[in-house]
């Protein structure tokens, strides 16, 4: 039914847009491996004559401490928000009670608020409890504001586990905690992978909390990258190398676990 010529046009359109989408990747890679004397505005698209990794060395030495900050932030924040999300999702899908749907909506709303609307009290609160400008402070922030999305994802995930399994376990005398421990958790591996990838990506990439809660040596990598690109004395080949270094962890996750990333992305649209 579709003519070869129609098919060719479809390919051409797709290839055109694919090249357009890959253009930034080309610029990042080509610029970041150029020797300094070949980095110029006029020669952005030309290939380097030799491959030179000195921009990576410079960018890495500038970003390394912040990369560590990001790791210290992302790992606990991801785990904690996933565990709390699983607990909430379990109750809200398998132990519904009067008002539980309302509670779910109340929690869910937190996902959509502009974080500017809680930022001023948040900073004051963190100062009060001595967590301002600390990684634990940022972890707290990301766990709390990650709750809506992790709750949503686990609730939708657990909704697919048949209620009969829960009923059967109840008849066998299993309690609330027993069912969670022996029925739900073993079935949650995929759920945890999807939620963890989603939270990892989001927290790694987040900027607003990072730039307002931390200063200088406590800053996660995205703030350091922004400082690098805002600074007039840093060459843009170093900026490009820095951008790639900062993006690499989430890019690798996407390349190797892309399927789960997309599942998380789809689960973010409320009905899932």
């Amino acid at each position: 039914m579709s003519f070869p010529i129609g098919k060719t046009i479809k390919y051409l359109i797709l290839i055109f847009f694919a090249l357009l989408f890959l253009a930034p990747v080309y610029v990042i890679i080509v610029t970041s491996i150029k020797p300094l004397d070949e980095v110029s505005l006029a020669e952005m698209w030309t290939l380097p004559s030799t491959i030179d990794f000195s921009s990576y060395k410079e960018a890495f030495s500038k970003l390394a401490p912040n990369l560590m900050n990001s790791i210290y932030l992302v790992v606990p924040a991801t785990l904690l928000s996933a565990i709390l999300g699983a607990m909430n999702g379990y109750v809200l899908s398998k132990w519904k009670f009067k008002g539980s749907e309302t509670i779910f909506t109340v929690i869910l709303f937190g996902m959509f608020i502009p974080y500017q609307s809680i930022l001023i009290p948040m900073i004051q609160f963190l100062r009060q409890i001595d967590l301002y400008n600390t990684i634990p402070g940022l972890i707290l922030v990301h766990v709390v504001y990650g709750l809506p999305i992790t709750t949503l994802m686990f609730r939708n995930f657990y909704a697919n586990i048949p209620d009969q399994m829960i009923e059967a376990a109840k008849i066998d005398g299993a309690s609330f905690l027993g069912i969670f421990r022996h029925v739900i958790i073993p079935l949650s591996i995929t759920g945890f992978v999807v939620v963890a990838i989603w939270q990892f990506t989001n927290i790694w990439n987040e900027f607003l909390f990072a730039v307002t809660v931390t200063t200088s040596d406590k800053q996660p990598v995205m703030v350091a990258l922004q400082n690098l690109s805002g600074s007039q004395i840093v060459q843009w080949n170093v900026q490009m190398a820095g951008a790639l270094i900062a993006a690499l962890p989430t890019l690798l996750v996407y390349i190797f676990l892309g399927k789960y990333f997309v599942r998380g992305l789809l689960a973010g649209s409320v009905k899932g």
Partner: protein
Amino acid sequence: MSKEVQVKKRKRISKDKWTAVAFLLPSLILILVFVYGFIGWTGYVSLSNYNTIVPDFSFAGLKNYKYLFSDFRFQADLRNTLFFTILFIGLVIIMGLGIAVLIDQKLKGESLFRNIFLFPMALSFIVTGVVWQWLLNPSTGFNHFLKFFGITPKWYTDTNILAGFEWGSIEFGLPVAIIAVVIAAVWQMTGFSLAMYLAGLRGIPDELREAARIDGASEFQIYRRIILPMLLPITMSVVIIMAHISLKIFDLIYAMTGPGANFVTDVPGVYMFETTFRGNYYANGAAIAIIMLLLVAVFIVPYLWNSRKGEQ
């Protein structure tokens, strides 16, 4: 079942009920305090005179809001947000739907194409901003190709307002510079609508298309009359989610252009950040934040309401 067992069982069920509530309680308390309590606190700050380093919570009424709505910068922000939102949502939908339909034609290399269009979703807005400020820099980037066609746009450095007319203290119209930011944002977020539409297209049974073909419908008619209407709920979700991203956008613009000359690329998120944390105008910053929240709520509350009702 003997009476004793029944009583025991009921006891256990009610104990389980309480454990369930205890499971939920920590998160619920956190959300009530950190979301609703803090929003209330921000609202309180927005009505105060706290535009100083030293906290001053004396009541100022709507003074800060009145100031903002007469402020050149904030008026420009609202204008920019309006045009950014319209262009951004429109392009994300057109690109996502168009590419999804093409990919869904059972072409070879389907998963390669899908991955190419989806990977920017895994990046930070900061990375996107850092890279695109060079790609859309007027003296390099894409202009190297465009100059062959005799066009050299000034991108985000352009201070023109298209179809502008005086309104309030600003010139109302499409700020040309915002188009550059829209392009970067669309590059990053098209993957989202693409993934949603692909999932939607997969959900439409082949028999439906077959039946339409047998009835003599052309491919174009099948899309126009059958598939697009079936994708409407997905389009609604995409619009809502993109709208809330667009209304609270901050990092992309902060990294890529900043407020720009005459605030042509400024948005409330950037203004809020700078005035609060660089200028110590806490009450003004809080007022901007509350306005942003209200704008988002206009989209989100009906959406949440509907999707909760639809599930019950």
